[in-house]
């Protein structure tokens, strides 16, 4: 008997009452101004936001906001301020030392300030290894809550996706909050 058979057999033997699957419809919270809520929560979780004005140049804004960034990685066609394209590198480890990563999010979630990232770069390390991460997001693509989020999220060819809510953080030393544990020390969402 394989372990799989042994386990399934044990489950069959021990399972008693079979409970029905509950109706999953939730009358979940919605917001009049999803963008305002998203930005508010994003700040609460240690992130920053910038709303791009009409006719404002995205690349110029990024450079102005990050004057010290030397190594800038991005695969986006409309980003010209990058210093390299991570997709052209062979190994993820080569991304180490990236000051600024610029990526695009699929949609934002108002209730928790998260942005859904369906991996669309060769190395997902870009999301985590950069000292600071900028996520460019269409301001019209913000959903109210996670129920709506899961109804529309998809995972594409790389087979990985992540909700990112603010920069990486820890409070493992005496519950003192420190922004920037292993992932980015800063996270900005640019709404355009």
């Amino acid at each position, binding site marked *: 008997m394989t372990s799989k058979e042994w386990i399934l057999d044990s*489950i069959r033997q021990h*399972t008693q009452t079979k409970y029905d699957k509950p109706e999953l419809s939730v009358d979940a919270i919605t917001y009049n101004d999803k963008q305002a809520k998203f930005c508010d929560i994003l700040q609460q979780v240690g992130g920053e936001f910038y709303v791009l004005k009409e006719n404002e140049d995205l690349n110029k804004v990024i450079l102005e906001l990050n004057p010290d960034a030397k190594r800038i990685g991005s695969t986006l066609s409309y980003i010209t301020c990058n210093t390299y394209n991570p997709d052209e590198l062979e190994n*993820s480890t080569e991304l*180490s030392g990236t000051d600024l990563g610029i990526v695009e999010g699929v949609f934002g979630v108002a209730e928790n300030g998260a942005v859904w990232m369906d991996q669309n770069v060769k190395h997902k390390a870009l999301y985590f290894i950069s000292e600071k991460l900028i996520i460019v997001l269409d301001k019209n693509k913000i959903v109210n809550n996670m*129920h709506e989020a899961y109804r529309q999220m998809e995972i594409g060819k790389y087979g*990985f996706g992540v909700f990112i809510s603010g920069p990486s953080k820890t409070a493992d*030393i005496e519950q003192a909050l420190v922004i920037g544990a292993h992932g980015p020390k800063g996270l900005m969402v640019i709404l355009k």
Partner: protein
Amino acid sequence: MSTKHSIAAAKFAANKEQATWHNETLWMVRAKRDRLSKEIPEWEQLRDLACNIKLYSNSHLEQLLQEFEKNATANGAIVHWAKDAKEHNEIVLGILRDHEVKHFVKSKSMLAEECDLNPFLIEKGIEVVETDLGERILQLMDIPPSHIVLPAIHIKRQQVGELFEEKLGTEKGNSDPTYLTRAARKHLRDKFLNAEAAMTGANFAVASTGDIVVCTNEGNADMGTSCPKIHIAIMGMEKIVPDQEALGVFTRLLARSATGQPVTSYTSHYRKPREGGEFHIIIVDNGRSQILGKPEHIKTLNCIRCGACMNTCPVYRRSGGYSYTYFIPGPIGINLGMLYSAEKYFDNLSACSLCLSCSHVCPAKVDLGEQIYRWRQEMDKIGKASKEKKMMSGGMKFLMERPKLFNSALWMSPVVNILPRFLKYNGLNEWGKGRELPEFAKESFNEMWKKNKVK
């Protein structure tokens, strides 16, 4: 009458300053949880749903685990099944050996703790590095976690400062959390870049898609799986949720309940192996299928390991994680320990005041306190009831069944007021430790009633 828990708790409580800090800090986390939960009007509906989804999924494991395996396999993952801890550890070792892995990075997993994975692998010559900051601190100290979400909650910053000074070469006397965290970041960054394989636990496994979902704040699971080609995800079989719709209920509850955050910084969904890599998933039973046969305790399988029951527990907060004899402390640990081995872990049953606060904060509505109460009724059957308590309740029963004797005893009771202390507070009176007897009234209610003194 003392249990191993109460003896260890007395030691923890002896350091008053530290015990007070521990209590107040965890209460602060509980208060944050309250604040966040109240921002969601449908919070209670979510808790009900979470409970009902788990009751459904845990009573349909045969079907859901196979559905999960089918989908995960179609995605390119390799699914393993482990009956117990030993088999789990051997599967992990087998994978690492197949790929000649020498450096192995791990993100937090209570299942790996349950299986004692680290010592097993280290003995086989593999470098195992915990990458969650709290877990890494404890690994360098060679001690276990004392909380399932805040593993190093019992450690002071000065201790971390001294530890890092010795192990990572940080400045002498610097115990600033930001400074120390940055030092760990640098130290672990090297480990991430040089590892050949990474392990994560699983917060959820989605049957309909084959996804493994991992929630962290530090980003260590993601850093770990970003560089090495091999990813091993391990899951207790109760981590299964039927579909994404159900997953949404849990990702809304988890971080709010655990740390009072709207969601963790990273909620990662692993579906396929990395390009040119391998994605292994190990489904572990290790006694879980047996729990299915105990209807009164089946809800322990609802647990999503958020730690809210610990943060709220007046006993846990004041006695610390090491007072418990099972590796998971607090209300859920008391119950899981009893299910694993009642003989071995019955001491923890005393670590409960039956206030039921745990049951009221649990996001998946595990009836934690109620189950502890039920276990206590079973103590005599397994021969673990306290002799002193048995004698006392035997005496009470004798008295209660004899109204005349009871009334005489009551009439006599004010005598206790004038007894010398050594007769009242001695080794036989466990209750009297740290407590003072109230004064007995000169007249009982019964007598007053008879004399028509009660208006």
